[in-house]
């Protein structure tokens, strides 16, 4: 046992799913950590696209925002934002898109817009950003989201992103070009869509997680795959690499900003 936190387990599990050379549309937070961990370990040729327009970026530290200078400085090239969405995403040039959300339902549809009614929300969330079109166009999506009955819900308050809609082939019939959610990586393990119904089912558990914990954390009646895998514990190399990345990041974000012509008292 390596003493890894569940955040670390999620990040490492997501990193392991990324093939070398794949073109990956990255979001901030756990997805950004997972994609860069994959790049530092088994996928040195992974192409990371951040929606700010940076392509093939290889940041030494994780960005706080989607457009930190580090992403531009370490990119293969930087394009205007409209090109990212039209020439790359809409044109079908993204293999994997990462998504997060405040709510997910049993078919992998996502809400990142409001809790409560749209006109009078109890919680106004940040909104869609690039997510609806990532969900539509990426060949497949990976969703990273911690589980609780408040986030894994029977009914979304708002559908910001299409997963498998009502399942049973509804997404394909709607003409959506991308394949939809390939996996949901959460803090007890991994859900994957059932091949026929596309309902998310428990596919894998972290080493120290239980099926009972998974069922309790999900707000709908969670289906369980006939063969639930046990996810191998993080290796020391994986953990050391991830922790070093986070340590570099913390140090960089504390570094005081230098404004030309000014000194900070």
């Amino acid at each position, binding site marked *: 046992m390596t003493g890894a936190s569940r955040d670390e387990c999620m990040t490492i599990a997501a990193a392991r799913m990324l093939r070398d050379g794949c073109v990956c549309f990255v979001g*901030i*937070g756990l997805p950004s950590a997972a994609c860069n961990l994959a790049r530092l370990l088994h996928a040195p040729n992974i192409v990371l696209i951040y*929606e*700010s*327009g*940076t392509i093939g970026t290889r940041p030494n530290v994780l*960005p*706080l*925002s*989607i*457009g*930190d*200078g580090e*992403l*531009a400085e370490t990119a293969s090239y*930087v394009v*205007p*934002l*409209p090109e990212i*969405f*039209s020439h790359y*995403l*809409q044109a079908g040039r993204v293999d994997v898109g990462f998504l997060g959300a405040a709510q997910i339902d049993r078919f992998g549809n996502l809400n990142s*817009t409001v809790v409560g009614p*749209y*006109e009078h*929300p*109890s*919680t*106004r969330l*940040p*909104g*869609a*950003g*690039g*997510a*609806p*079109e990532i969900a*539509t*166009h990426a060949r497949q999506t990976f969703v990273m989201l911690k589980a609780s009955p408040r986030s894994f819900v029977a009914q979304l308050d*708002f*559908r910001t*992103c*299409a997963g498998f809609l009502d399942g049973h082939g509804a*997404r394909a019939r*709607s*003409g*959506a*070009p991308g394949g939809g959610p390939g996996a949901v990586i959460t803090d007890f393990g991994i859900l994957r869509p059932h091949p026929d119904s596309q309902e998310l089912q428990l596919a894998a558990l972290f080493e120290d997680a239980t099926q009972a914990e998974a069922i309790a954390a999900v707000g709908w009646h969670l289906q369980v795959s006939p063969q639930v895998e046990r996810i191998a514990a993080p290796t020391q190399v994986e953990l050391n690499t991830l922790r070093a990345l986070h340590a570099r990041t913390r140090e960089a*974000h*504390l570094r005081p*900003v*230098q*404004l*030309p*012509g*000014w*000194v*900070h*008292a």
Partner: protein
Amino acid sequence: MPILSLGDAIRDHVADGDCVAMEGFTHLIPFAAGHEIIRQGRRDLHLVRMTPDLIYDQLIGMGCARRLTFSWGGNPGVGSLHRLRDAVENGWPHRLELDEHSHAGMAAAYCAGAARLPFGALRAYANTDLPAHNTAIRSVQCPFTGETLAAVPAINPDVTILHAQRADLAGNVSLQGIVGAQSEAAMAAKKLLVTVEEVVDQLPPSMNAIVLPHWVVTAVAHCPGGAYPSYAHGFYSRDNAFYQRWDAISRHRESFMAWMQAHVLDTRDHDGFLGSLGWKAA
């Protein structure tokens, strides 16, 4: 193309009720210009920006905005924009109309605006609840293939305001690094104001650095540090620690108002703003 003080540029070119786009996708956010709009007490603005960020949180909290066109309203990597949330959830300081899109939709709307087309077409919004809550998201049939596409009306702001690295004396503007949708927002606008880190006799020769030519630029204001606490590539980096501090400052109305009073309303200009945060001219 005149080079104006920022105060004069805002006074002459931003009126109450205007549709104003202050673009910059985490990079080159025109904070100094936004603060000057707050100081001059503009009201009833229709604010347009893909990512409202801290500057629109401040404008909304100070009661400058009537309507917001946007696609992602958070504090990047930190969490909520608390002033935006307070306006939407509680109507404080007053109600805010939302015109909500996705990034792809807004990018298409700026591109259409820049080309002076009436709408942008794209494959977007399919199977989402956004069109049900925004009558500006519609569909159109391709006359060649019959495919149904999403359609969004062109964005043509009364004024677009950008921050850029440099302008030359003729008013040509260049910006580099993450360029977001600035060029499109600039070309879509009726008037274009640009604050810059430096004014040079002549822009350094470069074939592809984005240049906004002098005849589309309404006015330039020399405003070093004008994107702080956002950043200007090649000049200074993003103050991520400030973005993290903003979460606590903006969480409550009282601490927000006290901060705005001390750092924006009670300061004369951007140098005064920086001075109030502990910066001293070297």
